[in-house]
């Protein structure tokens, strides 16, 4: 499922809304998650999972093609941990 399909499904369930509104709603939700992570906050969505940010240290990497050493700067990476209920749903019926 891609974003436009998600928007369409939600629009069909909510005939009182324009598709344009639904698009804004979906973008507002996703944007809020990214903004929270950019502030260093955690985002916890029960039943789905939790997003957080981890610090990766800088290191000396290597260009695999040339073997040349390159400096990799420290950076922040977003991580997602699947929620308990979602984990169970993925494996329901097996």
């Amino acid at each position, binding site marked *: *499922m*891609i*974003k436009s399909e*998600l928007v369409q*499904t*939600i629009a069909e*369930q*909510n005939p009182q809304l324009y598709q344009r*509104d*639904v698009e*804004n*709603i*979906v973008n*507002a*939700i*996703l*944007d*809020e*998650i*990214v903004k*929270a*992570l*950019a*502030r*260093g*906050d*955690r*985002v*916890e*969505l*029960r*039943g*789905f*999972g939790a*997003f957080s*940010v981890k610090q990766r240290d800088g290191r000396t990497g290597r260009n695999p093609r040339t073997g040349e050493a390159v400096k990799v700067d420290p*950076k*922040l*990476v*977003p*991580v*997602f941990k*699947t929620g308990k209920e*979602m*984990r169970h*749903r*993925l*494996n*329901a019926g*097996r």
Partner: protein
Amino acid sequence: MAGRTVTRADLAEAVYQKVGLSRTESAALVEAVLSEMCDSLARGEMVKLSSFGSFIVREKGERIGRNPKTGVEVPIEPRRVMVFKPSNVMKARINGQDMADEAE
């Protein structure tokens, strides 16, 4: 680093502020969006949200695990797990850059 935890209520508030809906409707829509995503993943489909990232369902084979406390070997059944792959846009925003010079 603020270290706050953002929840559904905060997402609903953001929707309320940005779109001209009531607070109740905003909360219901946040719920609807998450539940559509969950349903899709539970069916084994991948959910791809441009400029945000992708949730991918992976099939894991059976393997032998070990109870780290007792050292007893236990079989780990084949199972499905979900992984999140953040988009370059998200990675850049978290590192305080915009995408203007991201050629990756």
